[in-house]
């Protein structure tokens, strides 16, 4: 029983990793926390639903479609709202509120989509689980291998993209300083479009994996946003590699700490599960606001500084 929960924790953690990477990428390129990011995952959830229950195909085949739909949705949002508002010179606060509005809008769209199945096809779509459509290797359900495989592949591809390809280097340059990047001949618009496509696609892909192990509803995606933000913040908010560690840590600890709390303190602790990422969030802000990235940089700086400092002291002693 415990082993199942650990597999589930790793599944959740790898999905949260994908979501945190996307959240961080959005923050890097557009400098706003995208509150609608969790709702992209909701679209992935309903792609899986449509494939499994409506078309009757294996929902694993819907993953590329989920990636594409999430990416296109993200591009549409960027083109219609974020890009327009940025061109008008709106500040980051206004943009963030716009993402809040988008979250409510998209959440309502998802609900309407779910009710469409109820109204026209007599299928109950507002709460569902796709465990029956999953395959099994031994005792372990297939989603464990698939989710961890997809997240590791994504991390490797992303690392390759960001360090070896022209597009990735352009993305990093744009994140550092958009004006300087445009002076160097980088088409910022294309870079932004690409990164928004990537974030939306990754979020939707992560969402498509959720209904295999969690009872999903239209609001599941937007409910997960706190964990995503905590993961991104733990990773330092401005570092993709930090987000990988942060997202995985938050996902793992959310499930395992709840389990530990339930075993030690009693079953009532399960109700407080959403508070765990919030506690992480506050702890990170109080202790090290720049998260793992800031901690890493501080340690590295100390290590590089320690050598010349000693020599200076020696000179003073002389």
């Amino acid at each position: 029983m415990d082993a199942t929960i650990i597999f589930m924790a790793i599944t959740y953690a790898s999905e949260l990793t994908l979501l945190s990477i996307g959240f961080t990428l959005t923050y890097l390129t557009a400098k706003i926390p995208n509150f609608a990011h969790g709702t992209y995952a909701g679209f992935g959830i309903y792609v899986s639903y449509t494939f499994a229950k409506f078309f009757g195909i294996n929902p694993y085949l819907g993953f590329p479609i989920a990636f594409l739909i999430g990416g296109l949705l993200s591009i549409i949002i960027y083109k219609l709202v974020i890009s327009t508002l940025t061109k008008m010179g709106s500040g980051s606060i206004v943009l963030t509120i716009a993402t809040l509005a988008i979250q409510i809008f998209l959440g309502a769209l998802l609900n309407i989509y779910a009710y469409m199945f109820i109204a026209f096809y007599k299928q109950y779509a507002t709460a569902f689980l796709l465990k029956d459509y999953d395959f099994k290797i031994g005792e372990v359900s297939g989603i464990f291998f698939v989710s961890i495989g997809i997240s590791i592949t994504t991390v490797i591809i992303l690392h390759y993209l960001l360090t070896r390809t022209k597009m990735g280097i352009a993305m990093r340059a744009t994140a550092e300083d958009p004006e300087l990047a445009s002076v160097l001949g980088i088409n910022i618009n294309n870079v932004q479009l690409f990164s928004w496509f990537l974030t939306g696609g990754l979020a939707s892909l992560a969402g498509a994996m959720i209904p295999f192990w969690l009872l999903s509803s239209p609001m599941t995606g937007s409910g997960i946003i706190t964990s995503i933000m905590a993961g991104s913040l733990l990773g330092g908010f401005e570092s993709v590699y930090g987000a990988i560690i942060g997202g995985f840590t938050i996902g793992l600890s959310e499930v395992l700490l709840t389990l530990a709390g339930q075993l030690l303190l009693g079953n009532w602790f399960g109700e407080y599960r959403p508070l765990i990422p919030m506690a992480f969030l506050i702890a990170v802000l109080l202790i090290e606001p720049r998260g793992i990235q800031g901690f890493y940089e501080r340690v590295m700086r100390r290590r590089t500084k320690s050598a010349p400092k000693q020599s200076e002291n020696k000179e003073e002693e002389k």
Partner: protein
Amino acid sequence: MYVNVALGILSSLPMAIEGTNRLIVDIAMFFGLLVIVAMALNFQYGNAGIPNMGCAVQVIIGAFSVSAVVLRIMFTVIASSGVPLQDWNDPYNWVYSSPFNVGLSNEFIKTNAPIAIGFFLLSIGIALTLGAAIGYLLALPAIRLRATYLMIVLITMADASQIIGRNVTFISGGTLGVWIPNVFAWYPGDFGVIMAVITLLIGLICFFIFRTMLNSPYGRLMRSMRENEVTLGSIGKNVVGIRRNILMFASGITAIAGVINVYYLQFSNESGYQRAYWTYWPWLMLILGGPGNNAGTFLGAALIIALRRLIIVFKFELQPFFFFPIPYLEDIILGGLLVIVMIFRPSGLIPEKLLYIPGVNYAKMVQEDVKVDWRAAPKARAKKGSKEEKK
């Protein structure tokens, strides 16, 4: 129609408040309620530039302070005056004897108006204090950092307070909720009318407090902080302290809205304080009306509340045309509205005007434009700009 409403308020006849009149009273009530939140938000974001995404937390604190603190005081006072109330001390009785106790309390309040008014004022005082305290606590982790962090902390705290309220029965009865005595049971007329009048009165008082503060030197300090924090810090002002003070003050005012909401519903439960409702709507009102001026906030609140109440009232007439529940239509309309307003009218329906301070002659202070009347400055500036273009 209006005569009826006026008559209803004056002679307090329940007969007068029916049909369309009931709708008007309802809209007035919710306008008063949300305009308090929106004005406090305008005070924070429109004038001081603090993006408070946690209005829901402050409202929920006001609501919880009534059910967790004032209700116990109320029961203690009423029980000590000889009313045979049932036990309310352990969590089980706290929920299950609540309807019975509240019924007896209402009977008691009918004959003891001054005590009831005292309870109402006490709950407002407690809400102010607790709201300010929660403002301080919320500011603690993120106020020194970037605005983004503050937004994230506040938006998560809204969810956290709901989860705590749901699971700690002691606060507001957990998932079942607790009943709240009607503090206006002594009023012979319609409950909705007196509640709307009281709410609008409190809203008016809040408006005058905010207006006075904005026209004071502190208001100018706030505006300068909104425009440029670094400059303000460099001339020796404590930016973090100012920001914290403003957040605390506005949190206290916002908590009053929670108190009024609880007394209006006569019921306290966490489920009514969703982030989407109590955070998003005030923001929508603020952006629609135009951040930075109170007139805009009033207009925005009136439009949104009227739209929303009309959708709710005509829900059953609208429902046959849609295959999905009407609240989602509401979400789509209002979610889209914010984005549309942001794109097509970025400064809102009523843009912010230049600050006019009586007794200060800017004309003398600014040597370059000596003859400018600063009350009409935007117009003058626009004219000058057009002339230059023509040349």
